[in-house]
């Protein structure tokens, strides 16, 4: 537990109230997200899950400060978000490491921007690299790293400045299934030590349940919050839990919620025969109603 001294861990509180975002096109305003209210309590791991194009990344980008809400408010620790800053560390799906910087220089970047002197930030970066098991690669350029390694660097780079909240936008989306599982375990282990506030966006149900304390489920366009599900699984989390009946029950529930939305997102002509075996809880409605 002594490793945490590298980055001063902060536990911010994220509040998003009645968030709405629309943008203008020739055909008129298009609503991407409507009336979304979410929060991340200090030290909590929260996921947003939903079909592609539901606006979950839009929501995350608004918290990061890249997008201004059309309606509603976004705040961290009570201060309205005005633009991107080191307060909110972000990890992107595309690896986004600076190719011209070595692994260690990448991790040091945020500290350099803070004006920390070279020797201090070097020590800091090395400790974090050790935590991620990447100390041996500190002098390599990102090009020489595997996808999983790059994303580990991305995560500790975002943590290095000690942000109030860590934002992750489908960070494991472009990794293969096996690496993905390992990365989920590494992330949950790191969180277990650091206990920083996390807002995690994914479309992977298992990933969301495995990592989170709470999961928000979003609807298809315009994106709204459809459900909020607490994940009462114990900590620390282990891969073996994914087979537990508790996990599977949560999975079944979320799966049904998401499938309805995914079907809406797919749209077009989908008939009953094509959808056989999808196993959606219809609650007395017909499949056509659901879609």
């Amino acid at each position, binding site marked *: 537990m002594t490793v945490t001294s590298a980055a001063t861990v902060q536990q911010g509180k994220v509040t998003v109230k009645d968030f709405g975002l629309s943008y203008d096109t020739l055909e008129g305003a298009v609503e991407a997200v409507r009336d979304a209210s979410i929060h991340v309590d200090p030290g909590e791991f929260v996921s947003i899950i939903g079909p592609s194009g539901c606006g979950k990344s839009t929501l995350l980008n608004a918290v*990061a400060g890249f997008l201004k809400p059309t309606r509603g408010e976004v705040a961290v620790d009570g201060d309205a978000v005005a633009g991107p800053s080191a307060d909110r560390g972000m990890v992107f799906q595309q690896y986004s490491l600076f190719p011209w910087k070595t692994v260690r220089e990448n991790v040091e*970047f945020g500290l350099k921007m803070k004006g920390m002197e070279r020797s201090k930030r070097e020590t800091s970066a090395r400790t974090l690299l050790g935590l991620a098991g*990447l100390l041996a690669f500190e002098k390599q350029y990102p090009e020489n790293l595997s996808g999983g390694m790059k994303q580990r660097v991305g995560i500790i780079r975002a943590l290095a400045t000690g942000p109030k909240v860590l934002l992750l936008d489908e960070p494991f989306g472009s990794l293969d299934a096996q690496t993905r599982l390992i990365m989920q375990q590494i992330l949950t282990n790191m969180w277990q030590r650091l206990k920083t506030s996390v807002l995690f966006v994914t479309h992977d149900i298992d990933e969301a349940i495995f990592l989170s304390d709470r999961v928000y489920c979003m609807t298809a366009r315009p994106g709204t919050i459809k459900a909020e599900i607490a994940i009462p699984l114990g900590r620390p989390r282990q891969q073996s839990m994914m087979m537990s009946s508790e996990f599977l029950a949560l999975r079944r529930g979320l799966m049904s919620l998401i499938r309805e939305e995914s079907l809406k997102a797919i749209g077009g002509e989908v008939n009953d025969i094509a959808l056989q075996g999808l196993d959606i809880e219809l609650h007395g409605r017909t499949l056509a109603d659901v879609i």
Partner: protein
Amino acid sequence: MDGTALKLTETVARSSATETPPAVPCAAEPMPAPPKSNLVWRWLALHRSQLRTLAIGAVSLVLFLLAWHLLTKYRVTAHVRFVNVPSPEMVFDSLTRVTRDNKFLSHLFLSCRRIFIGFGIAATIAVPLGLVMGRFRLVREIVFPVSEVLRPIPAIAWVPMSIMLWPSNEESIIFITYLGSFFPILLNTLHGMAMVDPVLIRAAQCLGAREASIFREVYFPATLPHVFTGLTVGMGVAWVSLIAAEMISGQFGIGYFTWEAYSLVQYADIALGMICIGVLGLGSSALIRGLGRVVMPWAKT
């Protein structure tokens, strides 16, 4: 202290067990002979394809010289006339003769100096201008139309205007050289700025970088590979423009030397001048590539 160090090495060991580092690319072809633990042999086997390229290149050059030799020796005339074309031996003789006096060397030196100054000024203006144009839309909107109007005019077409503009011949030749290399450098830098991955900008912003830092730490290094493409192309055009300018209005320089040789019916010197221009062009491109490798250690090519 010891405890933490131990823990760190432990994590390193564990993680490298779970995830193997990317494999070193290994030779696809099997070893041609039973493997020997001889270092020289292994080096040869690993560099087989490069060695092959080198060997074929050498043979090809020798064949070219041989063809040149035969064509001039037998004074072949098949529509194209090789009657007055100097043979490789004559050119070599000419080379040994001219290198003995300083006049030829000063021609070479003057041409190199003109390239150095003209290209240097072009690079010092075009690279920053391209960076600023790429970053600030207003600057781009103002400068781009002018540059688009001037760009299609070949540098050689500027010769008469240049002679009127500049008080000395030397300055007008340098100006032509400058013009030739300016636009390739500017356009490539501009293109590089447009190609910067926006996610890297956002990553930098999330790490607390402000405008000046983003420019220095992200835009500039991200654009560098394109800048070097521009410099390489610009160097090529600089030589083209210089030689043309020297032939038309010079009194010194390797371009002038080549043209003078024609006027004075010293045919071997024509070929010598041409070869010198080629070697100098090749050398200056190699210099820029080398510089690129030093400045951008992360880029593989």
